[in-house]
């Protein structure tokens, strides 16, 4: 199992797909000797924390042609709570693609690499994942599965399950099992977003956040099988405006008003028997018209 950290490099060699999440984390999937399939969980601390923007960033990276800095792979977007804003996505694609503006054909070809599925319940999610298995085998270019969000059915499932926790978690466990199998057999990468359900009542976040201050808002609440499947957890949060006012005192008024979002990544290796968390890194980004801009 090899994990290498490189700075914002995305390249595609034969069978090797390198997906760069942000400056700090890059996971390299090698098919030569050993391979690691990555399942990443993106968790949010507060409501507006830029996680959908991160997904758009990933989407654009994957879907744009190689000439403009993309990877030209197919992506499946499983949308459980209708949070995909196509107009915003197209906006980002148009801003990013360096070819002539309003190039309809290129935009269409980029968008045709994206498959969107809407699910309205966890049983439909399970059935859809089964159905996607056939798509995965027929479209070898499919490399990325985005799920937004995996926690959308948490409360309905909990209510349906009644008093027994096993019954409550049953459907998500089945989905997770299936996802694990898809990861192993088809060697795709999965990114899933997960909403926070508890507000953090700690004081204003300090700029130097250590791993101990990852407060109650990031305590995992989905089923245990899901926690075991996740190899990387990205915690997104929004910094208080006061902090960046001081930092960008020399910048323009518009810069000062921009929200700064931070991402903290903890990755746990699946091969180690103990669940020691290694490689805690963090980075920050702005949201601009062209999508996410890392600082």
């Amino acid at each position, binding site marked *: 199992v090899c994990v290498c950290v490189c700075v914002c490099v995305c390249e595609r060699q034969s069978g090797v797909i390198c997906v760069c999440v942000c400056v700090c984390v890059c996971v390299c999937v090698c098919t030569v000797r050993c391979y690691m399939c990555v399942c990443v969980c993106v968790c949010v601390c*507060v*409501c*507006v924390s830029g996680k*959908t923007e991160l997904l758009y960033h990933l989407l654009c990276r994957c*879907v744009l042609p190689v000439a403009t800095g993309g990877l030209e792979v197919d992506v*499946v*977007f499983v949308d459980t*709570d*209708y*949070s995909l*804003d*196509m*107009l*915003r*996505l*197209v906006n980002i694609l148009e801003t990013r693609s360096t070819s002539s503006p309003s190039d309809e054909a290129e935009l*269409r070809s*980029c*968008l*045709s*690499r*994206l*498959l*969107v*599925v*809407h*699910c*309205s319940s966890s*049983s*439909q999610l*399970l*059935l*859809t994942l*089964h*159905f*996607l298995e056939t*798509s995965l085998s027929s479209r070898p270019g499919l490399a990325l599965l985005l799920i937004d*969000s995996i926690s*959308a*059915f948490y*409360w*309905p499932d*909990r*209510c*349906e399950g009644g008093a027994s926790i096993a019954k409550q978690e049953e*459907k998500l466990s*089945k989905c997770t099992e*299936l996802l694990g199998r898809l990861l192993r057999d088809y060697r795709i990468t999965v990114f899933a977003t997960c*909403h*926070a*359900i*508890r*507000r953090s009542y700690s*004081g*204003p976040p300090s700029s130097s956040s250590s791993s101990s201050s990852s407060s109650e808002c990031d305590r995992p609440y989905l089923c245990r099988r899901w926690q075991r499947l996740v190899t990387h957890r990205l915690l997104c949060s929004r910094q208080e*405006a006061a902090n960046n006012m001081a930092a960008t005192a020399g910048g323009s008024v518009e810069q000062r*008003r*921009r*929200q700064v979002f931070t991402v903290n990544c903890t990755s746990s290796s699946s091969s180690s028997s103990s669940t020691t968390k290694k490689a805690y890194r963090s980075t920050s980004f702005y*949201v601009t018209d062209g999508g996410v801009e890392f600082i």
Partner: protein
Amino acid sequence: MVVLRGGMCPGLDEDLVRGLRAVDIKTVEDLVSSDIEELAQKCSVSYKALFAIRRVLLAQHTAFPVSGADLYEELLSSTAILSTGNPSLDKVLDSGLYTGEITELSGGPGSGKSQVCFGVAVHIAYHLKQSVIFIDTTGGLTARRLLQMLQAETNNTEEQMEALQRIHIFRLFDVFSLLDCLYGLRSGRLQQASVGGGSVKAVILDSVSAVISPLLGGKQNDGMSLMIQVAGVLKTMAKDFNVAALVTNHVTRSGSGELQPGLGVSWSHIPRTRILLERVEEATAVSHSSLRSATLIKSSRQPCHIKEEFDLQWWSRSKEGSSGKRKLDETDS
């Protein structure tokens, strides 16, 4: 959770259903997740038949993937932006209410949420000539107020009546009747309401927190699940019928003392755009000022914390005297 029944698909007869139930396969999900070979042996059915049944059931119940290009085309042709009638509010909302999305207005008591809802309904019914569905859970809607707003737009009583007829009102006070109403709308009443008056373009729910917040808290999970269910129906209705959903919400104080919208973190992911309404504190203390400020707290299109001031009396200003600018010193009379 779809239970297996005889006749759901060709090849699935009652005997087979009984046989499957004997090996603990009761739902479509169970059938799809299990190993077909094993199952064929246990139920003594041919592998081919069972595989075909599985494929048909999967095709019937799964959600179909749509290509991004097709989705974008569809969205371009069907999305509409509905102006609220007030230019400052439109600026905060990035030119208006978008169809296919949920927009949330939150504010404390007296901050003008209901008035904004009435103004939006009147604007859509009169200027845009489209129908509006107004679900009132607080009892604050009176036709007299709507008429008052319409009388400021036109003196022609026929036009007033026409516009009033385009606003369909539902009054309900608990979450189960709300769900009933929404499901009914989704399964056909929306089309019925469109007949003879322009299609329904907006569903206004004032207010969602009045029916949901009594259910939250405590150890019961039912409240959260019902909230997510309401959100789900609203969203699918907005998407499928291309309507703009506008909901109102109350506010609470956060740990650090700031105002934040109510209904908790789980609700905060549901609306696409959120606006916080507040009274404007003025130095010249006019006690019944109709000025309010709208702050954008969540948006996928604009940077947050854009703040605009607007006048609640915009929707009932008289046409003759207005010069196109907001009258800042107008007081309630």
